[in-house]
Each structure stands twice: as C-alpha cells, then as structure tokens.
C-alpha cells in the first residue's frame, strides 16, 4: 500500500507545483511601465503632479543638448576603474519626469550584446545610476502642460568604457 502511495503522492505534488507556477505568472500593472514608489530605492520627495495622467511615451521627453549632452555629463563624472575592464554591455535605465522637470522612480536593466540579462561590477552599476540620477536637464517636448511621464535612456559600454553615440 505504502509503495503505491509514495509515487502517487509525488505525482500529485508535481501537479500542484506546476499549477502553482502558472499562478505565479507576473502580474501586469494597469500599463506596462507603471512604477510604484519603493521606499528602499526611491526618493520620497519625488511626486507625480497628476497621478491620473502619467504617459508612457519616450518621444515626449527630451534632453537639453540631446544624447550627446547626456554622454558629456556622464563622462565628466565617470571615474574608470580597472575592475570595469571586463564589462561589455548595455544599461537600460527607466525614469519618470514630473511636471516640474524633477526625476525619480529609476529602474534599470543590465544586458549583454544580445540583450540578455548579465551582471556588471557593483561599483560600475552604482556609479552609472548615480550619474544618471544627477542628470538635471530633462525637458518636456511639444507640450504646454508638461505632463508627468516615463522615458528611458540607453548607455552602451565596451570594456568598461562608454560608447559614444
């Protein structure tokens, strides 16, 4: 009796586990990219002006001086370290811009050349994110109301050095 029950119970357990995995499928937010406040990584001071109208359109946010200015500001603050040498890949950094041109809700992915997830040296990651958090010249494009919104920037690295666009 016991011999029959054990494989049967294992079988049931496997079924239960597989059902559970399906239930664990990532929940969607109302819109892809809605980013809720996380007290561990987000500054409390950043607030959307109107949470009912936060757009998801990269084309509505620009930067004074464009991508080149971002890269210039980045290089002014960036300090290369030997430990970065082996890192070749991409940082995709999302952020929110509110109606007062303040930024917050930074989230990022670190990817290899085929855009698969990888790690970078912790020191590099901290430096990149700190510099991007310090960028101040964001601008709303073609809007009189300066609505809240999200955008992202891409920074590509080769052997730990920023590739200029």
């Amino acid at each position, binding site marked *: 009796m016991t011999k029959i029950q054990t494989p049967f119970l294992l079988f049931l357990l496997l079924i239960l586990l597989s059902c559970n995995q399906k239930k664990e499928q990532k929940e*969607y937010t109302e819109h892809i990219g809605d980013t809720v406040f996380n007290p561990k990584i987000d500054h409390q001071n950043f607030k959307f002006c109107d949470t009912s109208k936060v757009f998801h359109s990269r084309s509505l946010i620009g930067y*004074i001086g464009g991508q*080149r200015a971002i890269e210039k500001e980045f290089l002014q603050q960036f300090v290369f370290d030997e430990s970065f040498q082996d890192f070749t890949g991409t940082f995709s950094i*999302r952020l929110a811009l509110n109606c007062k041109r303040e930024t917050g809700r930074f989230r990022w992915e670190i990817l290899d050349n085929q855009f698969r997830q990888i790690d970078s040296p912790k020191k590099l990651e901290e430096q990149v994110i700190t510099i991007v958090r310090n960028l101040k010249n964001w601008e709303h*494009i073609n809007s009189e109301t300066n609505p809240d919104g999200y955008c992202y920037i891409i920074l590509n690295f080769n052997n730990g050095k920023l590739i200029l*666009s």
Partner: protein
Amino acid sequence: MKQVILFAFFFTFSFINAQVNCLIYPENSDERKSCEITNEALTYEQGSKKSQMLLDKAILLNPKNDFALKEKSVPFLKRGFILEGMEILNKAVEANPRDNLDYRAYWFFALGNYKMCVEDLERYYALPNAFPYIYTSGGDMDMRLLLAMSYAKLNQNKKGLDVMKKYVDSYEDTSDIGNLDYYVLGMLYYKNGEFENAINAIEKQMAILPNKYGNYYYAALSHKALGNTEKAKEILKDAMSKFSKPDYYSLINYNCFKVYFEDLENEYNLLVKE
C-alpha cells in the same frame, strides 16, 4: 509618389489597428481563436493590462502566433524593458523570421547595437521570400538605410556605400527619394573619400529637404577635404545664420549620424583658425 502611397497605406492601417485576417485558419481551431483574440487585444490601448492579458491568452492558445508575440513585445521595448521585450520578440522571430527579423533589427539599431542589426538584416535580405522594400514600423524609413548606417557605425564604409548606391538605384522615380536617403548616401561617399560624389548627393538632399543643417555639415567637410576651405567656411556660416541652436533634442532618432548645431560651430572655428 512613394510618399503618397505610403501615406495612404499607413493612414488606412492606422484605423484598422493592423488587424489580421483570421479566416485563413480553420473554423474553431486554436489558431483561429488565437488570431481573433489578438485582434481583440489590438482594440485596447497598447501596453494596457487588458491588451497584454489578451495577448497572453492568444499566445497560450497558439504559441507560434508570432504576430501576438511581436505585439506583446512592443510596449516592453518602447518603455525600456529591453530584456522582457527581446525575450518575447526572439520567440516571434523564431516562429516566423520573415515577418519579424526587420522589427528586431530596428530595435537593435535604435538601441545602438549595430552588429546585431546587421546580422538580422543580412539574414532577412538573404531569405528567399524576403520583401525588397521593408520599412520601419512607423513607415518612416526603408530598412536598407538602417543597414547602411549600421555598416558605417561598424567602420564597414564600403559595404554601407554599396547598400546605399543599390538602394537609391532601386527607385526608378527620384521623387521617391526620402528625407534622409541622399544624406546617408552623401555621408557614406564622404567616409569613402569620394568627396565630389558626396557633395552631389548632399546637394540633392538639400533640394528635397533644405531645413536640415546636417547636410551643410557634410557638404562643408567634403569641400574642405577637396581643399576648398573658403567654400567650406561659407557653407557653415550660411548654415549658422539660417538655423538656430535647438533648446533640446529628442532622444529618439533614426539618424545615428546626427549632426548637432555645435558641430557646425566647432568645424567653422577650426577652419577660421587654419
């Protein structure tokens, strides 16, 4: 003419949300149901929970529904979730390379990964059933422009120029030439040391679209390379007087050889000092 046809094409499709014909699948089949659910998903706002959940449902019914996979990837990619978007788009490419390689190539290009863009487009154009004329999803640019610029970014200027020459020759009517075509051709002639051809191409682009100062920049560089420094100065001075420095720039750009206003100023200052 090309612009008129393209306008009509995209104007029409903007109203029907690029829905696909599901009647090609057998009635009551999972493929038909999956297709219909995909169409329903497209009636909701892109990237909304409702739309994404319907696309998930469609993919569950037919995991090879590449159109649903592609549509699901779009909001992720547009909003900076590159990892998630690419994982989904890779599945679409696997299921149907012909209809999805170009879109993945576009994203590689847009994210500055020119090597992968070239790989995808070379693979696409080598397919026996590839369409010769394919455009970026908004219909703005022929993918051969992206291929040529990607070659140039990888310092394969000769290959880039060959693509551009064939591309321009492929249009029987020169009125079909767009806003960036002769610019990229001119830039590539310049990079290949064919300065007179570069000037000719850029002048053609200026006749089509006179309000882009990037044209002036490459025209000036080409004149300078030919030893016509005074002409180069004159062109740059003319550009700086005609245009003003933009307050800000969009972060989305199809032109990865973008010229900034400061490039005109810097080049002019260099020439004045010489």
